């Protein structure tokens, strides 16, 4: 049971209010998405949940206890970039957390304990689809695979909350779709709370059981910094009652070409030359003509 309570939280930098009067309670096993335009303060809110920053006023409680003043293992995190260690292999990245916890001086396990941990790590890599890449370095992985690694690295610590800061923002559409499926599967399997920041509204409503919108309630045109943002919308969604947006959206692993052809189909009436479902070679000559 993990209940997160954000009580009357304010945050300001150098006298400029960023967030004011933030009040929200997330019950156990919530998938909460925080939406907002750039600079609205949604990442600041996530950083306060992480303890990377402290509220100027108010408090954040997990299960009735105030959160630790430092980032700790009860709250896992996945950032948009720099979320994994580039100098460790995929497997070592996942082994890192428990190794730090069990071996305070060396930060490394040996023998029997290492073997058991290794098995658990490989299981997790299997779940995120990286079991073939265990000995590769992050630089050899694509963006989507790096984010999968970051998620596995966080999940092996079994945190109460998983915090994600625009984790799929830098990924292309088809990769994003497979990441959405992955995160939903992991959320269902692990029964933990997830809080994710995004500016993709479709993503928010597709994934979330709770959607929050952060924005400024009051604006002073003469002094744009005078007021902070707060939660302006707070919706609870029942995943069982969500209408499927598009039957084909539920297909796994849509390649970029699949999405392209789907859109070409939708735009059929606007296409001047070429058919909506060309073969690969025809597609090449069609796009050359359209450019000319």
């Amino acid at each position, binding site marked *: 049971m993990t209940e997160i309570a954000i009580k009357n939280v304010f945050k300001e930098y150098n006298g400029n209010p960023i967030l004011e009067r933030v009040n929200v309670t997330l019950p156990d096993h919530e998938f909460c998405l925080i939406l907002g335009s750039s600079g609205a303060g949604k990442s600041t809110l996530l950083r306060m949940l992480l303890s990377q920053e402290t509220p100027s006023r108010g408090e954040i409680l997990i299960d009735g206890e105030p959160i630790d003043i430092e980032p*700790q293992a009860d709250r896992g995190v996945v*950032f948009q970039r720099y979320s994994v260690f*580039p100098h460790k292999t995929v497997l070592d990245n996942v082994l*890192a957390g428990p190794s*730090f916890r069990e071996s305070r001086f060396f*930060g490394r396990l040996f023998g029997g304990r290492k073997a058991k941990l290794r098995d658990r790590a490989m299981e997790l890599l299997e779940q995120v689809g990286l079991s073939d890449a265990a000995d590769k370095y992050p630089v050899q992985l694509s963006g989507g695979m790096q984010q999968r690694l970051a998620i596995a*690295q966080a999940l092996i610590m079994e945190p109460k909350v998983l915090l994600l800061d625009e984790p799929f923002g830098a990924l292309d559409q088809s990769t994003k779709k497979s990441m959405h499926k992955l995160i939903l599967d992991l959320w269902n399997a692990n029964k933990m709370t997830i809080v994710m920041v995004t500016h993709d509204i479709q993503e928010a409503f597709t994934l979330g059981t709770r959607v929050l919108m952060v924005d400024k309630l009051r604006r002073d045109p003469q002094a744009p910094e005078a007021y902070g943002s707060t939660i302006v919308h707070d919706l609870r969604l029942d995943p069982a009652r969500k209408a499927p947006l598009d039957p084909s959206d539920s297909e796994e692993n849509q390649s970029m070409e699949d999405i392209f052809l789907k859109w070409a189909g939708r735009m059929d009436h606007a296409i001047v030359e070429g058919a909506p479902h060309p073969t690969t070679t025809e597609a090449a000559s069609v796009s050359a003509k359209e450019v000319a």
Partner: protein
Amino acid sequence: MRRAINYVPDRHSGLILAILPFVFLMGIYLVGSDARLSANPDDKLMPGLRAFFDAINHLAFTENRRTGEYVFWTDTLISLQRIFIGLSISTVLAIAIGLPIGLLPYLNRLFGPFMAAFSLIPPLAVLPILFIIFGLGELSKIVLIIFGVAPFLIRDMAMATLAIPKEQIVKAQTLSASSWQILIHVVFPQVLPRLFDSLRLMLGATWLFLIAAEAIASEGGLGYRIFLVRRYLAMDVILPYVAWITLLAFLMDYFLMLGSRAMCLWHHIR
């Protein structure tokens, strides 16, 4: 007719072009030397190949009658020893002081400005002080190298530490890492490639400090020998010694590069 920037030599041409300046220089030297020697056979300024050969033979392959040593190799060993000890201690200081300064904000505020000022003290101006304190033996020469190299490396390591993305430090904390574990498992491996690179760049300065210290007060070593035979205008000794020092510096640079490739696989992939 293209722009000059768009002419790119292929691999073979590139190799030939690389060797060309060396061959050219050798050619000019031989022509000049020949001209001078035909005018004046006792010329000391540009000895011929025969003179070089004799000098090297005498120093490297003939036992010295008085001391029983092979002078060239003894000099090499002494100089390399001083450099090796000096650089090793500097590296240890760079890691032990530089990394914590970069990682811990209190240490950063405390030592950052001080190290910056310290690294601006000209090492050669400090040399007489070192001789006074440590005498004229091995210690003062090694301390000079440390004095010249360590402050720079410490600042470099501190800056490299500060350059590590904050996200990684926060992530490590959520993986329950302590400051010590962050230091050895997140910071150290990532600054290691830069340490190798900085050491390579400091080789020129290191040899400079060594030769200067040996020139002023020493009983052996490559720099000592060069300045000793200066009085006899012995270019036939000096030029081979200079070429040898250059070769040694090149080999050290090469081995540091190999070291980086071996110890920091992740950095050199792709």
